[in-house]
């Protein structure tokens, strides 16, 4: 804990130092990840040019394409070329279609981005009320039931839930589409409708996990001395909880929220397959199936970057919300 007489600028300086160190660690992590991804995808024998041209191609044409794609260069040089391209946002061209990857990825992001955002909203809408309720009623049967329900919610994988939702909501009730995506440009309402079931499948499981953390955090707060003091001062229970409890409870929840966000991003890969949404995950899986390794490489790095940077931001936010945390730590 920092002493009270600590000048604010010294605290800011310590925070900046912490932020700088976390930033360096993040960059090193991403560098390490990029080397690993590149190594795994390029270490195997077998020329991508051969894959592109098929088994009927003459050796001469394979050699020509290999040179054209720059695949005859030594691996470290190929790595530098790839990573340099990524840093300047030149994602290169698909091995299979020959088309630039960037526009295709952009279109996919227009599906995955809103899906993850909706999933997060839905997860929070479940986690916060159920977590608080099950904490406040932890001595009563209703609280225990809520906690048990979240346990079950955690155990249902998002893709299983997705298929169950399709059976009930799309097949039986015919309320929402079972699969596919209506582009935003065609109909915003249609696009949203096609994202509702996927977002619920994605958000419910993450919400159940988050709910347990909210419950634990609120339980810790409810039993804290400062809340008893606030109540002794004459503050009604609800106002005491809102004024003193929520901010204190938000610290652990915030960390988990960061983890959840990466869970949502990864979960989206699977959920897009369930609902055949043309998002980043579907693009990744079809690139794997087509052995379009350069697209796989780009997307894996993109997703990894988003996940790692999210964790960095949550880490920094964590210190802002709770200045008591040892900044040097």
């Amino acid at each position: 804990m920092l002493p009270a007489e600590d000048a604010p600028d010294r605290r800011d300086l310590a925070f900046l130092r912490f932020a700088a160190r976390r930033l360096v660690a993040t960059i090193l992590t991403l560098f390490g990840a990029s080397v690993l991804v590149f190594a795994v995808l390029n270490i195997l024998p077998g020329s991508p040019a051969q894959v592109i041209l098929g088994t009927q191609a003459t050796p001469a044409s394979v050699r020509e394409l290999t040179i054209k794609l720059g695949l005859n260069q030594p691996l470290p040089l190929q790595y530098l070329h790839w990573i340099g391209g990524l840093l300047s946002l030149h994602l290169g061209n698909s091995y299979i279609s020959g088309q630039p990857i960037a526009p295709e990825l952009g279109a996919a992001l227009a599906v995955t981005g809103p899906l993850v955002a909706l999933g997060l909203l839905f997860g929070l809408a479940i986690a916060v009320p159920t977590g608080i309720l099950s904490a406040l009623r932890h001595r009563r049967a209703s609280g225990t039931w809520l906690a048990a329900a979240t346990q079950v919610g955690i155990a249902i994988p998002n893709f299983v839930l997705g298929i169950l939702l399709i059976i009930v909501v799309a097949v039986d009730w015919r309320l929402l589409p079972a699969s596919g995506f209506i582009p935003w440009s065609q109909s915003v309402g249609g696009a949203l409708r096609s994202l509702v079931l996927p977002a619920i499948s994605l958000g419910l499981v993450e919400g159940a996990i988050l709910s347990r953390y909210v419950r634990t955090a609120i339980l810790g707060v409810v039993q804290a001395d400062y809340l008893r003091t606030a109540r002794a001062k004459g503050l009604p229970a609800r106002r005491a909880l809102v004024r003193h409890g929520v901010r204190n409870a938000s610290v652990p929840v915030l960390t988990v929220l960061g983890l959840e966000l990466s869970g949502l991003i990864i979960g989206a890969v699977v959920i897009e397959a369930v609902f055949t949404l043309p998002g980043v995950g579907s693009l990744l899986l079809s690139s794997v199936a087509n052995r379009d390794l350069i697209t796989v490489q780009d997307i894996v790095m993109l997703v990894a970057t988003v996940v790692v940077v999210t964790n960095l931001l949550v880490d920094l936010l964590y210190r802002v919300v709770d200045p008591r945390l040892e900044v040097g730590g």
Partner: protein
Amino acid sequence: MSVELGLRPAAARRPVRRLVTRSPSAVFGGLVVGGILLVAIVATFWTPYGPLTISTGKELLPPSAAHLMGTDEYGRDVLSRLMSGTDLTLLSSVGAVLIAGLVGVPAGLLAASRRGAVGETIMRLADLVYSFPALLAAITLVAAFGASTVTATVAIGVASIPSFARVTRSAALPVLASEYVQAARAYGRSPLAILRRHVLPNVAPFIIVQVSLLLSVTVLAVAALSYLGLGTPPPTATWGGMLENAQSYLYQDPLLAVWPGLAIALSVLGFNALGDGLRDLLDPTLRGRS
């Protein structure tokens, strides 16, 4: 370790009831996991029908006495496929946890006992792997090596190494700092003997809890990979693969998707509950935390 000498006599009289009241979660999880193990063992030797046996004219039958869970689009018996899938899921999940444990536990012990550059390097490497999402790692490996049971198992195993290393290290650190280890050191015992005699037995319960919790994660990952077509290729029966197949017949036969979905959810729930319950028994102060 909770010994609670004072409670021993009562506990000896009613051990089962005490376990049920102290950790219902462990009992429930243990029962479910035991059931799954039993199914897997039975399936190794016997299934009602061959899991790959196609019978024309018996496609998409509803559940009946002959086919308790009905048949799929090729007339294959769903129960037999589900049982044989249990076998494969468990083998793959246990394999992944074994890989993770065999690398992660020694790495964690090493990181705990060598606090200098070696320990630092190990934990930074663990951070690196940990920050890389497991499913993404698996997809990358499958892209390079092709979809197979082995690729999926290795990918999930490697991605799970850091969680073992972390748990082992944080459990070993207080033991290594304890007075009896200092005494053993002063007595001239070799570091390896100390690790075997003192550290490992004290760390073991934490590792057992971690194994159970991790199994719920690997079961889910194995199912997800085979659902995405990145695990064991068809026609071998896998829970994820059955689910994927069933999705084409949701309008005709929704039950076909319910069975594998139920199997996946129940196993994840079972391993999770067992791990949670064991953790509560191990350390009552952690009760209610996640």
